[in-house]
């Protein structure tokens, strides 16, 4: 809008910076970036979420557990992984409430991001449901599968007790 007006007025896409009075060229080119990311090798993770399960990979050769799941084991160089189910309970380690959100999250109210240590060992980072002010150190949480405003499923942390 601003740009169109300035082109009509000055013959160029110009605008004067309010604070400094310095003349600015309003970029005519716009770039939208949206990535296409391969999940071919972690497909079972999403199949698991659909069934309400938290699945991850474990190296068959050396038993190393990976979460988030990954295709390759750097410990023994094997790529022979098995999919196992993680128990969906753990203890909260830290949290923050994001008040100033990125534009791509502007449809959400301030949200709480937390890290919990699962009883099975790995840590998980996700949104924490409920009032963050009621959370105390050592809070027990459960991993549940929720629905996002965009309509897709995603894991989240829910306080227990």
């Amino acid at each position, binding site marked *: 809008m601003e740009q169109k007006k300035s082109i009509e007025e000055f013959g160029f896409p110009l605008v004067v910076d309010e*604070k400094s009075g310095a003349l600015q060229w309003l970029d005519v080119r716009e770039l939208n970036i949206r990535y296409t990311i391969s999940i071919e090798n972690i497909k079972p993770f999403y199949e698991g979420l659909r069934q309400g399960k938290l699945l991850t990979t474990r190296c068959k050769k050396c038993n190393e557990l990976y979460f988030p799941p990954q295709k390759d084991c750097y410990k023994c160089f094997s790529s022979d992984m098995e999919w196992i189910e993680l128990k969906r309970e753990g203890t909260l380690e830290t949290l923050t409430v994001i*008040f*100033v*959100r*990125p*534009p791509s999250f502007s449809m959400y109210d301030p949200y709480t991001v*937390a890290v919990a240590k699962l009883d099975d060992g*790995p840590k998980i*980072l996700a949104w924490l449901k409920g009032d963050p002010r009621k959370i105390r150190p050592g809070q027990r949480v459960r991993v549940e599968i929720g629905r996002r405003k965009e309509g897709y499923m995603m894991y989240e942390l829910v306080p227990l007790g």
Partner: protein
Amino acid sequence: MSENVAIIGTGHSKFGTRKDVNVAELCWESIKPAFESAGVEPKDIDYFVVGTAGMWSSEAAVPALIAEYAGLEPKGSMRAEAACATGSAAIRVGYTTIKSELADLVLVLGVEKMQESPSSTVIELIGRFGSYFWEFENFGLTFPGYYAMYGTAYMIKYGATEEDFAKVAVKNHYYGAKNPYAQFQREITVETVLKSPYIAWPFKLYDCSPITDGSACVILASEEKVKELGVEEKVWILGQGTGTGTANLSKRKDFTSLPSVVHAAEIAYKIAGIDKDDPVKYLDGADVHDCFTAAEIIAYEDLNFCRRGEGMKLVREEQTYIGGRIPVNIDGGLKAKGHPIGATGVSQAIEAYKQLLQKAEPGRQADIVKGRWLAHNVGGTGHYAYVTVYGLEKR
């Protein structure tokens, strides 16, 4: 690997909102004084490095841009990137190039013009400095959010308060007010910080470093070149350590320390001949990466300026002001001086140069007794760590 490396010239633009210049002009503001103070010309440069994270500004090929604007064509160059440690990564390239005897004179420029994009776009882009797929895509972590999780964990573990964090901002604004290159040249109170709106709990607006335009430039020279030019005013790079952390925060052992920094510091101390159990004894001061207030407190501990859990005591007792145990960020730090991502590490090097040569502005000159200054520059949330020790006497 015998060649010593010195900073022989420096230049620093005014940091802040720089709508009055374009990217190339902003670069020249620091390049020109760097050449002048080094007493060399563009034709003398063997190689140059540009630290810039980019994305938010229009020009991506900054080395080519300044090859043209600053007369460096056809010399070799590259662009370096390590998130908020980009400036130190650029110094790393210059330092190692000279050390490996592939060049005698290297220009290192750090630049960022973040305000060419609206702040909402910058918030979006800077949140992507961790694990994009697992922690940004679905959970929208912002840069303050990443560090806020460290702040929260530190509060839980050691009983620090939001007021403790606020005192870091108060100190850094106190010195920023004395630095003519700083974005915010005004003092604030604890109340200013506590009353400011939450960005990512427990951080409020005044716990956070700002979005900044700025450039900083140093000219590095080999020992041989220093002799040849007869340079009198110089500061040596005594040692540098580097570290890298996991992309996912969920892979971190705890949230009160950055292992990449501990690793980098150990290496830097060893190379610089500093006892890692008591580095304060060897240093006249330091610049640490206070992108957020709690990060400065954690830095004290990771650098071993004090024991674990005692960083907040240094703040409470004002031990990091001039005259205290060790002056820290007496240029205003990222908090008040500003944080133009790619320029920050280079700006820290310039502060080391100014402090050691006693060229700092009135009211913010530390006592120089030991002749060493430390710079701690972190990219992302400990995703990259650079610790550099500068000194008046070569090793």
